């Protein structure tokens, strides 16, 4: 088999491999937990290698969609003819998708390792986890609207069971937030958001009237078929529909509850990768298929993104549960992504995609560390946890790394991304941009407040006697967290390789969007 044929099936195998992993696990007897762990780690490793291969092999000098391959799937006859190519499994990645694929590979691998401690029917856990990831990869690598939606829904479907079965309820002084409640809320809200996406997809298909769900084919006729009114009507549907998953205010309320209730690896994937699907959807469908609508609505998105940044940070300050702090900080950080998209500027959009990657690894690290602490102390209450650094040195350092990334310390990935976003905002919105941008900078300051407060109290304070007996992380945990730290440092210190790949996707997209307007 030549390298060309290999390249043409890589993307397909990226979707199929997690599914194959799930199938293999089904055949392994559930009692053999060791074998289940090793088999899932094997599949996760292969997927990680594959995603790194894709990222490195991506030719940024060419740009555009690479590794393309199309499989015929279903015909839809109509006035447009027999529509034999209406729905095709059209695969291909541009620079943005390649970055996201790499992120998903990393988070999947570390999530699989972190979940070794799942004891209650770990086989079922891994099966659902892999189905979820198959959906995630599917969204990133397809440019057919039907399959985009197919995989989008597929990645939401296993969440209910994953959270409901393996999650944990949060007990507060005066009320309890049960895991079943959070799981149901998350599923219903996310699927509710996809109502708008579904309608928008059907509307785009019908308005294009070429009998195809292929985004590239539709993109070619946007100018002649999509009137500005149509685009202005469709874009907010996509923006809100995907915004729900991206944690956009005021549709974010599922997210802290869901992330807190979910088991560690699922929080990692959900906050790390799944929320990015929302932002990715706005870029892929919104910017590409209704560019004029995007331009009209961008100021709104900018404002919503800014609200996200500040609102999320303020909420995070008020939390006493470690996971809720991280959950709200995710909302705050997704705000930068939305702001970056809203700039429609080379710097801003690059920053947004980079922030998607950076926040993905950072928040995965956060949730991994909180999971380690919870497993040892059985509490996440910041009023009770104190002086963890004395007995859990490594864990505390890991938390510090994630925390400093999150407040944008230079040298770590968050700084580069947020800087780019701010520059984009200033450049494309002028005076208004300076106003909005300064508000968002206040958000960064707020982040510093809650992160540093946590670090000083929970980790680096005096240790009370009840936590004297704790143990530090083991090798498996160190290794998986180390992978994430490596990614953070790499982007923080030497962002060029990633940015150039992202840029090869962003530049043509932007010149197209601006050109249409």
């Amino acid at each position, binding site marked *: 088999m030549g390298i060309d044929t290999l390249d043409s099936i890589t993307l397909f195998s990226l979707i199929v491999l997690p599914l194959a992993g799930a199938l293999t696990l089904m055949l392994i007897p*559930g009692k053999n937990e060791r074998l289940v762990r090793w088999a899932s780690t094997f599949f996760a490793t292969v997927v990680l290698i594959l995603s790194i291969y894709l990222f490195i092999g991506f030719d940024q000098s060419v740009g555009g969609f690479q590794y393309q391959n199309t499989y015929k799937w*279903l015909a839809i006859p109509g006035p447009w003819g027999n529509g034999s190519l209406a729905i095709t499994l059209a695969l291909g990645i541009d620079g943005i998708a390649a970055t996201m694929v790499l992120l998903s590979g990393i988070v999947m691998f570390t999530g699989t390792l972190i979940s070794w401690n799942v004891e209650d029917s770990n086989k079922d856990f891994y099966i659902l986890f892999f189905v979820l990831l198959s959906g995630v990869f599917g969204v990133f690598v397809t440019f057919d609207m039907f399959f985009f939606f197919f995989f989008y829904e597929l990645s939401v479907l296993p969440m209910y069971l994953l959270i409901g079965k393996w999650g944990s309820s949060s007990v507060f002084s005066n009320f309890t937030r049960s895991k079943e409640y959070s799981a149901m809320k998350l599923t219903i809200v996310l699927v509710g958001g996809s109502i708008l996406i579904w309608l928008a997809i059907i509307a785009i298909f019908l308005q294009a009237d070429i009998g195809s769900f292929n985004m590239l084919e539709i993109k070619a006729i946007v100018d002649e078929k999509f009137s500005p009114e149509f685009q202005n009507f469709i874009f907010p549907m996509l923006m809100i529909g995907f915004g729900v998953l991206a944690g956009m205010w005021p549709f974010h309320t599922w997210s802290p509850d869901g992330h807190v209730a979910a088991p560690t690896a699922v929080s990692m994937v959900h906050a790390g990768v799944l929320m990015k699907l929302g932002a990715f959807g706005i870029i892929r469908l919104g910017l590409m298929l209704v560019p004029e609508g995007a331009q009209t609505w961008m100021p709104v998105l900018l404002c919503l993104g800014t609200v996200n940044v500040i609102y999320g940070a303020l909420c995070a300050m008020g939390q006493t549960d470690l996971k809720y702090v991280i959950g709200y900080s995710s909302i705050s950080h997704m705000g930068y992504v939305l702001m970056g998209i809203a700039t429609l500027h080379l710097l801003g959009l690059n920053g947004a995609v980079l922030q998607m990657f950076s926040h993905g690894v950072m928040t995965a690290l956060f949730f991994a560390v909180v999971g380690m602490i919870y497993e040892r102390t059985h509490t996440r209450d910041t009023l009770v946890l104190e002086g963890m650094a004395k007995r859990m040195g490594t864990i505390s350092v890991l938390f510090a790394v994630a925390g400093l990334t999150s407040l944008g310390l230079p040298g770590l990935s968050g700084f580069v991304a947020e800087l780019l976003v701010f520059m984009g905002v200033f450049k494309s919105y002028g005076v208004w941009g300076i106003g909005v941008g300064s508000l968002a900078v206040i958000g960064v300051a707020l982040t510093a407040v809650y992160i540093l407060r946590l670090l000083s109290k929970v980790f680096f304070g005096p240790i009370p006697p009840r936590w004297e007996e704790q143990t530090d992380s083991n090798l498996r945990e160190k290794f998986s967290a180390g992978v994430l730290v490596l990614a953070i440092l790499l982007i923080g210190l030497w962002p060029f390789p990633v940015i150039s790949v992202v840029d090869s996707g962003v530049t043509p997209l932007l010149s197209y969007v601006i050109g249409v307007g």
Partner: protein
Amino acid sequence: MNDFSLLLPEFLLTGLAFIVLGVDLFLVERDKRYLPWVSSTGIVTILLITMVLAENGQLYDGTLIFDDYTKVFRVFFLVSGLIVVLMSRDYVKTHLKYQGEYYAILVFTIVAAMLLASSAELLTAYISLELLSFGLYVLVAYDRYNPKSNEGSLKYILLGAFSSALILFGISQIYGLTGSTRFDEISYVLSNTLELPAGLMVGLVLVIAGLGFKLAAVPFHMWAPDAYEGAPLPVTAWLAVGSKAASIALVMRFFAQALMPSISEWQYIVIVMSVLTMLVGNLSALVQKNIKRLLAYSSVGHVGYILMGIAALGSIGDDGSMQTVLSHLVSNGLMFHVVAYGITTLAAFLCLTVVHKHNCEEDISSLAGLSKTQPLVSLVLVSSLFSLAGLPVFIGFTSKFYLFNAVGAQGLLWVVAIAIIASLISLYYYLMVARQLYIEEPKLGASVPVSLFTKVLLVSVLILIVVGGVYPSPLMEVIQSATDAVISGSLVKFA
């Protein structure tokens, strides 16, 4: 010249029913467990004969039409009938008396369903519908010492008889004003009438209402939950799949081949019915505690989606004339969704019969922790529920997407929006069942053995559900040939 070999599958099935009745006479009670095997072997043979030998043609001057549409539905009814017979075997043995009659009547209703799919004339259709209903009245009441079975069956018979009267009265109106009961002739008259006379409108409304009863469409759905709850479990499955699909087969042909020219008169009636059906069905399902009632309301909800497709079979052009450009697309979607709904519902009921064998309860909470005690059954059950909810990778997602897209193409995007919201509502109660299966702890600790044959059956329906979702194009080709027949049958002639 009538070529009676066209009716071969129906003749053979009727013969099979009598053979079952006859064999039953000579079997001692203990040996009656062979009856389902006799019936299922017979059905499999007839299925093969139908697939290989059945030809296309017409009988009685076109009152019965045998085309690819008939053929697809024949195969569908035989396969689903076969699965119902197989899932009945334990249930009937333990819970019911008079097994011979049970299987014979079941086979009779398959004949009736097949005839419904081929009738192209109102009286023939009416008689087939009655044959189907009479069989079902008996089957629903089969558990005769169970008060619920009696209650459900009484409601079913009374309302069923009432709806038959409505249909008959409607037919008489249509016959009086068009001079024919044949679909093609009705269509011809309608296409030459500019203003529909009031009497004809009354007839149409009555027939639609009567068929609405049979389909359990809101506001004519009241009998469904009680009949579903009271009937023996396999009969509920047959009510939900066989009887419903048979009525849909008739409705689709009737609307496409007879009523299409006056679509501007009835489209809004059907849309209103469809919207009500989706919303009321799915909202009522939210509060159900009994799994059979839950599935009853969920199937009411699915009838809503189907009716939406019926309403979209044609569209009204700017000048008020009917447009049929997209009829193919919509009818493809309709049949796809009927098949998807049928397979999925059968799978769900198959799982329920297996569970029922062990705990004899029908509460949703009795399914708690099933994933621990019967992993395979609960996997198939949860897959079928997710498929009904319209989630990928299952067939329900693909068929819903196809149908909704087709209806949207017909210019009814606002109805599609309501349908998508309704299907979001449905997700809630399906997830509540999934919660019992996977999240709650089991009440009975011991795992229960499932026979190898049942396992094979479960795995094969699961494969059908998944393959239909990820690789639908072979199924779609078959459906395409069927809709070619039913749409081009009379439409294009007069369009």
